[in-house]
């Protein structure tokens, strides 16, 4: 147990230097890009003196190193600063609320992606060469090739406009989750299906499977007890990637369905040159990936008893 705790703590501590480096790179990249939040706020109405005066007021005219230091010392204290584009809003508050939304959407999308992916993959692997195999793989190819935008609008028109079974846009109630979760999870579902199928095919050819069958175990028990569990180990590899993508790559889905998640906030902040929000978003995304990968590594230990943490 101690080895496990030490392992987790070590991994989490390694996050800190990672975040510092990432924030530094992002910060100085922001400086090289033309434009600033004041110009974006005022748009066509931005006058030269007005922009300069406001930039001074918001502290944007200080040398980059000074500004970066201010940001870093604030972040160390847990204060991520105030947004420029959304005056009066603390960045931590904005991102926190958006992250909760993204978590919920990501969870729903993961459920869909893994539920559908695993089922299709297992069915395909067990019934290799049969119709269900071809159908599953066809669905997987379509799922991975269909652009998010097209799928979102197609589903929106089918279920919201014509059938009127679901709302087109909105957030908050369970009915709002369905279409976005499907759209967001489709590409991951396709990936999971294909990897599960391959893993199943591998495992079903193994000696221990033939042994189990020779012992007289029925086909169903063979599959569920032995094959699937062993197939899960390679499949887990993609769990980290899919979770990460589902939690951070939802920009188009959020944009179309009107969901206030971190995908939208982070991309919009880049367009608006809202530097504190850009910083915090990038750091949040980095943290998400590190934490998810840690969780996946821990899960390997659960699934495969051979793994130890030294």
């Amino acid at each position: 147990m101690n080895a496990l705790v030490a392992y987790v703590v070590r991994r989490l501590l390694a996050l800190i230097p990672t975040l510092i480096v990432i924030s530094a790179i992002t910060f100085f990249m922001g400086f090289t890009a033309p434009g600033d939040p004041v110009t974006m706020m005022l748009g066509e109405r931005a006058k030269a003196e007005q922009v300069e005066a406001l930039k001074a007021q918001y502290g944007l005219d200080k040398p980059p190193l000074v500004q970066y230091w201010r940001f870093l010392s604030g972040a160390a204290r847990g204060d991520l600063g105030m947004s420029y584009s959304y005056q009066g809003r603390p960045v931590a508050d904005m991102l926190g609320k958006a992250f909760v939304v993204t978590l919920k959407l990501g969870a729903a999308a993961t459920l869909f992606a893994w539920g559908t992916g695993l089922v299709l993959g297992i069915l395909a692997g067990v019934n290799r060469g049969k119709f269900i195999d071809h159908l599953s793989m066809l669905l997987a190819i379509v799922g991975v090739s269909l652009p998010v935008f097209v799928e979102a609008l197609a589903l929106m028109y089918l279920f919201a406009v014509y059938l009127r079974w679901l709302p087109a846009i909105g957030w908050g109630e369970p009915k709002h989750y369905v279409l976005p979760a499907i759209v967001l999870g489709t590409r991951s579902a396709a990936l999971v299906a294909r990897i599960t199928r391959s893993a199943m095919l591998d495992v079903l050819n193994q000696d221990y499977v033939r042994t189990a069958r020779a012992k007289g175990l029925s086909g169903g028990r063979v599959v569920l007890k032995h094959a699937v569990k062993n197939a899960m180990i390679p499949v887990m590899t993609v769990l980290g990637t899919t979770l990460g993508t589902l939690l951070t790559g939802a920009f188009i889905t959020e944009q179309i369905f009107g969901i206030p998640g971190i995908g939208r906030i982070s991309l919009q902040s880049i367009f608006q040159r809202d530097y504190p929000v850009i910083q915090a978003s990038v750091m949040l995304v980095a943290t998400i990936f590190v934490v998810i990968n840690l969780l996946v590594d821990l899960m390997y230990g659960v699934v495969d008893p051979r793994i130890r943490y030294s």
Partner: protein
Amino acid sequence: MEGHTLKRMRFAFALMLALSLFLTACSGSKSDPAPNNTSSNTTGGETAAPANQGPKGTLKYYLTDKPTTFDPAMVTDVSTNQILQNVFSGLVTFDTKGGVIPDLAEKFDVSADGLTYTFTLKADAKFSDGTPVTAADFKRSILRNFHPGVGSPTGVSYLDDIAGAQKFMAAKDELDAQLKDNKISEADHTKKVMEAFEALKNDPSITVKDDKTLVLVIDKPKPFFVMKLTYPTGFVVGKSFPDDAPLGAAPENVAKAIGAGPFTMDSYTEGSMVVLKANANYAGEKAKVATVEMPVISSPQARLAAYRAGQIDVNEVAGADYPTLKADPELSKHLLEWAGARVNYLALNQIVLEAAKNKDFRLAVAHAINKEQLVKVVWNDTHLPAYGVLPDTISGANGAKIQKVEYNVDKAKDYLKKSGYEGLEFTITYRAQDEVTQRLAEFIQSQLTTNLGLKVNIEPMEWSALLAASRQKTELESFYLGWSADYPDPQNFLSLLLHSKAPYNRYGYANPEFDAMVEKADVMPNGPERMAEYAKAEQFAISDGAWTPLTYPKNIFLIRPTVKGFSYNSMGVLPLNTVTVE
């Protein structure tokens, strides 16, 4: 080999998944146009039961972006303005023809010298919480725009005609310069700015004569001053607004966003939905609809789908969708179009491009672009061709009477020859936005290349970069930009865009004759003579080829037939208090 167990389990698994999806779907579906509770998981979001008489029904409106602020002193974007201009009110507002009419002030008098404005507030002017609106509230709200802690990006532009404000801004600019040169410390700077702000508070140009009388003194007899008070920076805000900080757009600030407009803010679900409710205490024309739901839908395609699905009852139409909608037997009946208050133009920058200084060259370019074809090919007729600086909706516009710089290839060629710049190569920079803007740039490029033999390069630039570059004035040879009216007065276009010292003159146009005309008109008392002077100035600028106006965008909306009483003006922000919903 495969046992029945396996088949059954597979089937069960798949069925379970399908069922769970279906159940989630069916649990909350088919609840379209019912005006029931909204998903407001915010603090302080009570849903008051609508009165039996009085306002009823729910207007399902929309927002193109989430609100950037709840503070009238801070608003810069149209989407936020759409909310704030319905929740807050000011001394005056404008009517559908662009004229100034009383709002919370029942009348105002202007002194003979045009410098002193005396506003008398309506006796029943109240905030939404029932407390009376006083002149002191207005003074405080106006002054807030200048407080450094509030950091208003726009307050200065709309309120700096007030004499005391000018003094304050001069003092602050001086202190800012000193700080920049390190002549004073930051602490000293802050202290002295606050001293200047205190002086502003006591300045005689903003006086509260009594509870209902406010007196404002401006620096010159500018008649458009009262127009500028129709913008939110001049609106009155409740005592819950901090004096030294902006009120951010957050669910917990809904209860503090107290104004005196036709609606109150009922709830805000961050990033997703704003709900307004009718304000029974509004001193003007009270709202006829009880609730307004405004979901944030940034994607125009999703908005159209939401409209088709009955989730919203009003929608602005994107140019690309216009032909499809016009052809639709049902939806074409929902379309409503009216003229806007914006001009899109092509400017040749005299500071960078030598040829732009030559009037003949400018006129050659102006005569070489076929605007009638432009609005068809690029804009699907969602814009009108523009031949003047002022859209027709702005008084003082020459409109149809203008002596056009019309599309005439022969004239264009003549002017080009006279200018001596045949075969010139230059670059037009435009906003990298979408395929429509791309088509526009290519259209202009092909017109100038084909008709004049010029070598025109087109360069897309990201919005923020384009704004910064055009502001620099020394970077771009020519560019495509536009201007939307802040207030429906010709000064807002002619003086602010084309006067040689104008803040938005990014192309080096400098003509003393033109300057004299607008300087004169800016301080004439309002009336037909003033408008005639601006009309002269507009004609002059056009005939001089100051820049080439291209199009006036129209406002095109889809409005469900059950929504009536929609009052529209050219300004682009729509008052919702006259609307009824069946």
